[in-house]
């Protein structure tokens, strides 16, 4: 039994796993105490629940629970990490490095710091979406204090060489921040071996609730941050504000499940994604965006040439997908990530991000393959450009006349 629209937009957000909801709800209802209330059982039990959850988050990434700071989400974690580190270490230098393909939560934060007097280098990526380590080495200056590179890209799903970047940054004494919002539950994260100083986590990308995230802050060697939210001194003074027990419990449970089920789940999801890929690749002029090897199993970002992007999205309303990342789909600009891969505007506009997940079924994948086949051929039938290409005309040689 298919439910429409079929949800294939797991990278935008994930449903709360029923087990997570079940764990959360008592903390929303009967056990409603403020975890900072030291004076009664309502507060203590809430505090205990928060600490248990902290342990689950730490366990997924092989960190010490004391290294996990609760935030309202990965966007806030990214802001706290980058601004917090830049402001603390600005005596050492004022240069920041990141990639052009980062999430807006990182890019806008870095831009904000530029307005405050910092300097930034936004590195290009290779055509497969991966960082060029030589380019990073060349960009590092004596006054570089922070490097930020996401582990898994939200649009194209590629996995960056975090271990190698970490080695490089540690050698140079540069603080290394990683946005891992799209990574948890999808790739192995071992902060005991990765030389990462700061790492952002999101709950709602890993079957947890919205409104909660975390920031890993390394203790050995110690990383310092300027707090961005001041007040009652919560989270060792790094992030003030009453902790939302039920949301934190949800994140803890979601990460606990991820740790237990990730390997088996990834196998199943990879098979489904590969089926989807095979089913779509048998059409002409279909291009996968981003490296297929260094990529999470959940993501498939595909451009369908000679199909108008908006029409395509409208035509496939039976599946809920994304063209461009959710956080910027208010604007109809072509995806800056795809542009960074070298895709031209038309191809960028004609791209779809399929992201599957825990509850995706084979039936849904089959339906999607069939739907895309029908709609793409129909749209191409209507496309004069497609007609010309079929006739063997090289569109690049055409002189387009203005009217």
């Amino acid at each position, binding site marked *: 039994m298919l439910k429409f629209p079929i949800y294939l937009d797991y990278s935008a957000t994930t449903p709360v796993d029923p087990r997570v909801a079940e764990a959360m709800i008592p903390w929303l209802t*009967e056990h409603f105490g403020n975890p900072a209330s030291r004076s009664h059982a309502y507060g203590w039990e809430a505090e205990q629940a928060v600490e248990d959850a902290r342990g689950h988050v730490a366990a997924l990434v092989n960190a010490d629970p004391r290294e996990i700071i609760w935030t309202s989400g990965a966007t806030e974690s990214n802001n706290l990490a980058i601004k917090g580190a830049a402001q603390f270490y600005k005596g050492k230098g004022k240069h920041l490095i990141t990639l052009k393909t980062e999430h807006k939560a990182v890019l806008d934060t870095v831009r904000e710091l530029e307005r405050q007097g910092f300097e930034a280098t936004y590195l290009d990526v290779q055509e497969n979406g991966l960082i060029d380590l030589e380019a990073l080495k060349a960009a590092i200056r004596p006054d570089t204090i922070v490097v930020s590179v996401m582990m898994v890209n939200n649009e194209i799903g590629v996995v960056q060489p975090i271990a190698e970047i970490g080695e490089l940054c540690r050698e140079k004494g540069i603080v290394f921040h990683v946005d891992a919002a799209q990574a948890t539950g999808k790739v192995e994260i071992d902060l005991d071996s990765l030389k990462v100083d700061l790492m952002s986590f999101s709950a709602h990308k890993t079957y947890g609730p919205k409104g909660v995230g975390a920031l890993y802050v390394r203790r050995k060697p110690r990383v310092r941050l300027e707090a961005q939210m001041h007040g009652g001194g919560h989270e060792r003074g790094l992030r003030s504000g009453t902790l939302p027990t039920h949301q934190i419990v949800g994140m803890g449970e979601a990460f606990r499940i991820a740790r237990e089920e990730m390997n088996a789940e990834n196998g199943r999801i990879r098979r489904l994604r590969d089926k989807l890929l095979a089913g779509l690749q048998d059409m002409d002029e279909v291009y996968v965006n981003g490296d297929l090897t260094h990529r999470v199993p959940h993501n498939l970002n595909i451009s369908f040439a000679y199909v108008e992007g908006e029409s395509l999205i409208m035509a496939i309303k039976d599946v809920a*997908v994304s063209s461009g990342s959710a956080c910027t789909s208010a604007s109809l600009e072509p995806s800056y990530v795809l542009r960074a891969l070298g895709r031209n505007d038309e191809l960028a506009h004609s791209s779809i991000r399929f992201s599957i997940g825990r509850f995706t079924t084979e039936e849904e994948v089959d339906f999607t393959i069939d739907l895309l086949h029908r709609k793409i051929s129909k749209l191409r039938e209507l496309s004069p450009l497609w007609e010309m290409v079929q006739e063997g005309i090289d569109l690049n040689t055409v002189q387009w006349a203005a009217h």
Partner: protein
Amino acid sequence: MFAPVYLDWNATTPLDEAVREAMLPWLGMRFGNASSRHEYGRQARAAIDEARARVAAAVGAHPTEVVFTSGGSEANNLFIKGAAALLKPGTVAVSAVEHPCVREPARQLRRNGWLFEEIAVDAEGRVEGSALTAVLSHKPALCSVMLANNETGVLQDVPALAARVRGVGGWFHTDGVQALGKVPVRFRELGVHALTVSAHKIGGPLGAGALVVDKRLELAPLIAGGGQERGLRSGTENVAAIVGFGVACEQALARIEARKAEAACTLKTLRDALEADLIEAGASVFSRGAPRLDNTCFFAIEGVDGETLVARLDRAGFAIASGSACSSASPEPSHTLLAMGVPAALARSAVRVSLGHRTTADEVQRFATALLQQVNELKQLTAMAV
């Protein structure tokens, strides 16, 4: 099921049943990201718009004046730091009895060249007119005075204070977190430029708050990113909590209306009866003579340590507080009481009881009995130790 009698409503409140019902679908099948263009996303976007309208209605503001945040602390930080970022460094003035999440961000502004001033209060905890006059002579660019104090329950005359600050060209903010749902909170009538409110103080969930802000006041966002909340607060919206916040506002408004019609057995009656018992037993009740929230009782019994008394009452089955939750880790006596001129020793004996709409007369009576019993025991112990 053992459940202590909950008399700490100012710390946080139990979730309203209607709020729970409203929230559950958004932790279930309605899980879309509000920025997604498909049906899941559109559903979430519509729910947020509806919640925004409810919050706006509850405070008499326009929906476009409501900026959702993760809570009251964040909203306070957003006003103070966000406004200061777009102004030339000047003077920021806050009352001497503000919550740390107003005082600390204001103090932080000193690193950017701002002058920080505290506006003194009288022995009851009300802003002193003369103290404000002195501060106004420095033409503060930013000013914040809370509507209702979380510890004493004292209500400030915000319309009068705001008018005076506006008179010297300053922006005025009030932290209305403890006031919403207890007294009428009307944005325009208050004459403030910005107002902070929080869901979990009014039967809503933890994790949602709002800064209600006059659009003439320019704010730099604290959290950059995908541009949500018209660029003022980026980050995937917490739909469930926002929906809960909207319904909680409606419920709170309905309760205030219902209270107007009530005659006997209001919260005030229960609180006043408790205070009469306390005074008879020799307690000092803080701010008794000042305009106060009906539900709050902040008192001290000389020679009886507040933390100790509270711990014993917890064991006896009553949840109360010594000082506010946010600072109950710190051994410092209440900043508010010190600002009121209360000696540190007495301040260390301070205990706060705050009632709510589910509190019964029976609960308060049992509490009074238990309290007096514990006080006697503690006094005997002290006498023995001498």
